[in-house]
């Protein structure tokens, strides 16, 4: 099945498959499991749906990301994965590009990051003939630490447009509570939907807004090993 799905069945059963060209913000407080959710969506996209997934990482080196999947017995198919590592060079480590890892010069170098995204799109779409491509950015918050909101907005304006043109799906992670509410509202203009995560009384909740006629209910979830386990509706 070559569609865009989140791979969390309680949410998928309400939102259905996600429309091609959609850009989604994944937002929640620190330590609420966003990264694990993003990794699960990546795994589901590449392994279950046969999509290509491009991940821009500004927080963890590419090698660590791949290790996480291996350690959790969630092996990813190399030919369908592209990681743009924006951190390894910045921390002064040796970085070598491979077929599925490209190294950006720094998180400030949005021009360079944009070039690498375009190259992976060309690789997957033209050379490997994979029409369904997911772009995951982890995270916009780190980009906003190095560049101001207008700069990040311009970058997103271009690349959310490219997602639409390519009929792909974009997923952009944002740390809630790290930015001015005004900045988040500015960014939200560029997105078709939200995946919201929150913590209440030590429990984690998730819901999807904007991808179906009305928001999904809040679902309580926990991280079981590396998987997202829905415990029930709030």
């Amino acid at each position, binding site marked *: 099945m070559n569609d865009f799905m989140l791979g969390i069945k309680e949410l998928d059963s309400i939102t259905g498959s996600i429309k091609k060209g959609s850009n989604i913000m994944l937002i929640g407080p620190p330590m609420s499991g966003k990264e694990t959710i993003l990794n699960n969506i990546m795994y589901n996209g590449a392994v279950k749906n046969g999509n290509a997934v491009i991940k821009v990482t500004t927080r963890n080196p590419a090698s660590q990301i791949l290790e996480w999947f291996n350690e959790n017995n969630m092996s990813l198919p190399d030919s369908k994965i592209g990681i743009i590592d924006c951190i390894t060079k910045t921390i002064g480590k040796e970085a070598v590009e491979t077929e599925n890892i490209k190294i950006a010069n720094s998180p*400030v170098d949005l021009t*360079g990051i944009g070039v690498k995204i375009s190259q992976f799109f*060309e690789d997957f779409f033209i050379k490997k003939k994979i029409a369904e491509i997911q772009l995951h950015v982890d995270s916009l918050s780190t980009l906003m630490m190095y*560049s101001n909101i207008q700069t990040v907005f*311009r*970058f997103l304006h271009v690349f959310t447009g490219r997602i639409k043109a390519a009929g792909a799906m974009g997923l952009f992670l944002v740390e809630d509570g790290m930015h001015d509410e005004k900045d988040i509202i500015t960014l939200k203009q560029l997105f078709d939907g939200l995946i919201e995560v929150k913590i209440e009384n030590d429990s984690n909740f998730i819901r999807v807004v904007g991808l179906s006629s009305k928001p999904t209910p809040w679902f309580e979830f926990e991280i079981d090993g590396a998987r997202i386990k829905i415990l029930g509706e709030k």
Partner: protein
Amino acid sequence: MVKTGIPRLDELLGGEIPKGKSLVYYIQPGVEGEIFGLQTIFTTLKKGGNGVYIASSTSPGVTREVFRDFGWNVEGFKENLTFVDAYNSLIGAPSDEKYTVSDPDNIENLNEIMITLMQESQPSTILFGSLSTIMDLCGEKETIEAVRSWNKIAMLYDHVIVYNFTAWPYSEQTLKIIKNDIFDAVISIGGIAERVIFGQYFSIFKASWAEETDKSMLFRVFRPGGIKIFIPKIVVTGPFNAGKTTFVHSLSNRAISVDRLGTTIALDHGHVEYKGFSADIFGTPGQKRFDPVIKLICGEAMGFFLVVDSTKPGDFARAEQMLEIAKSCGLPYVIVANKQDLPGALKPEEIIKHFNLPQDVPVVPVAALDKTGVYDAFEVLVNKITGGTR
């Protein structure tokens, strides 16, 4: 005098960038355009000139590595290449460079350093690695004003000043000023997109010292190697047994053919990289029953070679038939007078008479078997395709 080192671009710019001039590489986001600036400054260094690199989106150390990725070792030019570090302070890292911008958010800080440096330095090629990053940090108006003054000082002190600029969606006014008002030359670098970007090109939007041209060049970026002009399809056609397959294999760095009983029954395919040009070559079969293939392939090609056996004038009528089919696509072409190493081979001027063609149609003598003349033929055709003069 400064050359960009980019094939064909220097010719289109009238041979070089004159002293005191400013040039911007105006880059569409997502297109690999910053290499244009790197290749320009490295060409200056290679020719014994001086370079200044303003690093604003990454550190000078990482920039040196990027040069190395292209096979350009700038360590050998320590005396001639100066870095202005406008990055490390941004991330709170120390800098070893002589010129360091302590507050990259403040244009005045960079301005002071640039004025001092331009006044103190020998005439140099000054490259801003990312003008857009400076604009992002310091503001659009403030950066434009600073660029105006840097360009003036560069003119006074005989520097050539070059900027890489990514055309993010800034205000219309800013993009208009960048494209029309503040630089002597603007080179547009863009992408060909259909759902995704699958090809890249450059063109001269303006150059105050050179003749106007509306030519666009496709390019590819090679590591190592830098920018090469890319010609996606050149066709090789000609009568049966004229030596088309041998020609394709002699010309190509790598090639493959689909043959049966010693003759091509599908296509020859080769890839050529030569003198800054990169091209894919497609050879057609020679038998009449494959003629529809010629038109089909030529429809998407940029030029073609007609290969003839110079020792067999009896085949020229058939060659003329094939020439007519290929010419109907309106492509530039070159006649390859092959097998010049065999006794009785007709000379190019004799061949042209047989074909009843104008004298200016290039007929290049070739012996494909030992590669004699194959690159001459390639250069002549590439010049016809790209409008070059060499």
